[in-house]
């Protein structure tokens, strides 16, 4: 308790002022009552008539959604006008004739149209939707036969359009009508049934900005609900435009290089975290959702065993395979368990007790130092390196590079991946064994990562040890040109690794591309650093019998080595060897980014070390 106070009051005037306050309350109440008297008693009859004798109705006019553009202002998502066919049952003089004409135009049975018109009988003045999104020929037919179709009219409405179909679809997302489950939830309480909203990707995350404000028409209606006149109209206000960090040129190149494959390509500026391209396959055509999607199409997309709705770059996780050797090497250099000079003789296999672990190369690599082991992706070297470094240190460095945590792109659920959690052997339970460490050292077993996590990881190696939050939206700009939001690079944390370790890693990774397993990504004029990976999906040998269970092909890389501007991770599901399958796709991405190669030969810009496309 607080110490007792000496008795009050020193302020004699206080009670007086409190009395004045009461007086104020009375006056305030009186003001409100006078107003109520005026509204309810004096004007009551007038307002009663206004409320009873039908009144103003509000009719929503849908606002066009904002565009989504790439970093240079190229349109990725826009709107197109669509025409819906409506009937006002009351105005249809001869339903049978109208139904027959319409059936002919819409190419359906007349009975179907008649049945639909009959549904509108209950509310004859309400516009009745007959068909959404008429195609051009039907529209022309309706216009031509307007005189035969009293009470039938067309209404124009903006609809979402993705001009390049499935390009970056998993990143951009799609829009569709708000569904029944959503309507029951509090956050959707202000949505009308049938209203469109973003359901995934950027469309969903930035829906509040993109959607704009619906306009409306204030219509005076008579007692039976018929519109008498348009009292007022507020134009809808278009949503804001979203400028992405995506570079259309790089995106297109990645899409083209990935054609027919399953997996993902992600490119990012390693010094900022800006995503430059994101491909995820199989994909889907978001245009299907923008019109009301047919049950058939929905079944096909949702039931596809390839999960086309999944954004594989962030939502899927795979064993990293040999890419993980980078982590083991860093952990070794940091803990002192390895030095660049540490040598191992590889004869093609490693024996731990009675268990034999094979190298991918029959006959082995001979004597290798650490750089040679990375360049040739020698398994035997890393089996032993992993044992020397110890699983705890490997896990610690993995965490420092962001593995095991969602990378933070923020477009919905993100895979966390998985890291080993070595437990000492307990009675009755298999604990962590040296064999587990051996397997983990080449990125198999209990190590699982998402492609985005590996992209952040190689970016940190490239930029000198900073983990940036990957982001895909650069700016939100209103229709009037005001910048509503601007997103800046966000350094999440430092990996805490010695600079010389990272210098060594960059040199070794450059060797991978120059002379090692990643040489198929080589682009003349640009020094690329990378690491290949081939992640086993099933037990060795098994894949020969089941070709759809072939190894996953990885390639994680960045360029130019001394001034990194772009980092690229490629994953081809069941693609085979990383160096053979994934590296050439990265090469196509680099060619586009740096404007080099046959496809970009006409561009006059020289093989630039500082490409302008990547500002």
């Amino acid at each position: 308790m607080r110490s007792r106070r000496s008795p009050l009051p020193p302020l004699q005037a206080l009670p007086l002022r409190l009395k004045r306050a009461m007086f104020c309350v009375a006056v305030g109440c009186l003001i409100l009552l006078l107003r109520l008297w005026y509204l309810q008693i004096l004007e009551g009859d007038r307002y009663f008539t206004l409320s009873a004798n039908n009144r103003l109705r509000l009719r929503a006019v849908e606002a066009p959604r904002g565009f989504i553009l790439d970093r240079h202002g190229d349109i990725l998502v826009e709107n197109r006008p669509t025409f819906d066919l409506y009937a006002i049952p009351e105005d249809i003089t001869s339903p049978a004739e109208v139904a027959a004409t319409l059936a002919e135009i819409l190419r359906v049975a007349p009975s179907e149209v008649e049945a639909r018109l009959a549904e509108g009988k209950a509310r004859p003045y309400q516009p009745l939707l007959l068909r959404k999104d008429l195609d051009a020929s039907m529209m022309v037919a309706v216009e031509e036969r307007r005189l035969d179709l009293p009470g039938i009219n067309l209404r124009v409405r903006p609809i979402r359009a993705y001009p390049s179909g499935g390009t970056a679809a998993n990143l951009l997302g799609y829009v569709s009508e708000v569904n029944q489950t959503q309507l029951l939830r509090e956050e959707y309480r202000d949505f009308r049934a049938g209203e469109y909203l973003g359901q995934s990707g950027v469309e969903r995350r930035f829906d509040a900005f993109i959607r704009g404000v619906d306009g409306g028409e204030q219509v005076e209606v008579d007692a039976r609900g018929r519109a008498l006149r348009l009292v007022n109209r507020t134009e809808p206000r278009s949503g804001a435009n979203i400028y992405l960090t995506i570079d259309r040129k790089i995106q297109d190149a990645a899409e083209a290089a990935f054609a027919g494959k399953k997996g993902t390509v992600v490119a990012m500026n390693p010094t900022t975290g800006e995503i430059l391209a994101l491909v995820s396959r199989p994909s889907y055509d978001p245009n299907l959702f923008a019109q009301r999607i047919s049950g058939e199409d929905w079944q096909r997309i949702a039931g596809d065993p390839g999960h086309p709705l999944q954004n594989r770059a962030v939502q899927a996780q795979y064993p990293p395979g040999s890419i993980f050797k980078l982590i083991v090497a860093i952990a070794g250099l940091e803990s002192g368990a390895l030095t660049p000079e540490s040598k191992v003789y590889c004869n093609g296999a490693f024996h731990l007790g009675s268990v034999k672990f094979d190298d991918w190369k029959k006959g082995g690599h001979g004597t290798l130092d650490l750089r040679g082991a990375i360049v040739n992706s020698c398994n035997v070297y890393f089996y032993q390196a992993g044992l020397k470094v110890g699983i705890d240190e490997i896990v610690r460095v993995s965490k420092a590079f962001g593995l095991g945590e969602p990378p933070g792109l923020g477009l919905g659920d993100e895979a966390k991946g998985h890291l080993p959690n070595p437990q000492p052997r307990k009675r009755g339970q298999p604990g962590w064994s040296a064999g587990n460490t051996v397997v983990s050292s080449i990125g198999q077993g209990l190590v699982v990562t998402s492609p985005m996590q590996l992209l952040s990881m190689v970016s940190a190696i490239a930029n000198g040890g900073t983990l940036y939050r990957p982001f895909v939206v650069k700016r939100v700009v209103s229709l009037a040109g005001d910048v509503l939001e601007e997103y800046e690079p966000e350094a999440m944390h430092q990996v805490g690794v010695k600079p010389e370790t990272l210098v060594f890693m960059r040199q070794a990774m450059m060797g991978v591309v120059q002379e090692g397993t990643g040489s198929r990504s080589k682009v003349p004029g640009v020094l690329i650093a990378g690491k290949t990976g081939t992640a086993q999906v099933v037990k060795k040998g098994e894949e020969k019998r089941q070709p759809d269970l072939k190894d996953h092909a990885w390639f994680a890389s960045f360029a130019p080595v001394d001034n990194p501007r772009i980092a690229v991770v490629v994953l081809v599901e069941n693609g085979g060897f990383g160096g053979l399958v994934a590296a050439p796709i990265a090469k196509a991405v680099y060619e586009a980014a740096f404007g080099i190669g046959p496809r970009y030969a006409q561009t006059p810009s020289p093989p630039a070390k500082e490409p302008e496309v990547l500002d």
Partner: protein
Amino acid sequence: MFDRRLLTYFDWGLVGAILGMTVLGVLTIYSANALATSAFRQTLYLRQLTWVCVGVGILFLACTVSYRNLGRFAYVIFGLSLLSLLVVLVLGKTGLGAQRWIRVGPFTVQPSEFTKIALILFLARYFDDHREELHRPQVMILPAAATLVCAFLVLKQPDLGTALLIVFLAVGVMLLLGLSWRYLVPILVGGGVLTPLLWHFLKDYQRRRILVFFNPDLDPLGASYHIAQSKIAVGSGGAFGKGWMAASQSQLNFLPMNHTDFLFAVLAEQWGFLGTLLVLLVYVYLITRGLQIAMESTDFFATLLAAGVSSMLAIQVFINVAMVLGMLPVVGIPLPLLSYGGSSMVVTMLGLGLLLNIHMRRFMY
């Protein structure tokens, strides 16, 4: 700590009035949304009923421990409330657009509501600590600064209504303390000069609402539509109202926000002038009772606390009703005890509980 004799001094009349109002609120929310298409809206009254139960629990809980103990933590509470406002700002930044709520488990909490009570506590404690120096104008500087910081943070959320309320509340308490008009006039003039600056911080929709208030033709479908429909609803109630569940204007979705800020319009349509008169008289009773409690108490801290809570109620009721009647711009302030909303209910009950608390212990200090 709890003394059975305290029950003797329990103000059952006040409790009765409070309970009556909350029940009226639930019934009105039920009738206003019974015809809504969304299942969520149809069950709003059940949620409100839950909040009433929580609120009544808090009302009694707020009486159990002496208000003096609360006073000891006044500065800490105020600090925490500032912190939570900052948290909202930060979360709001990443959560796109306006965000006034923090998610705590299954609930969303609106910290700006709690700021009101935290500020009252802070002011009461501060002036109590400095009661010997009240004649010195410098004493007013820190409270004024604290108020402006609160108001600014709330405004940034953006919640113009609560920000204004916070300023009015602090000015009210200072006036009670004898802040002379000589000081107040320069403050008001200064405020007038700063208004354009304030304008700069407002969101587009807030500016529009204020402009529309002065020129309703600017936005026939938005804010002016609300006001026009609200006036029709109130006026059409006439002298005796259309009766419960029979208020077409407010039920048929002509009146937006009929369960929160415009609840009074529903009441007015259903019960007419008679009903609104009664409701306003109950509010006057609650507020004057609070001021009486302030006068009776011999403890300066308690006096300020009670006066602060009463001012909060008075200002909120006046602004909300005046807004519904088209006398003030639409700024978004809930009607205490009646409007739908958990945070508002809890905070109002907390305030009223403090009044009961002070009343019970008026002979103890």
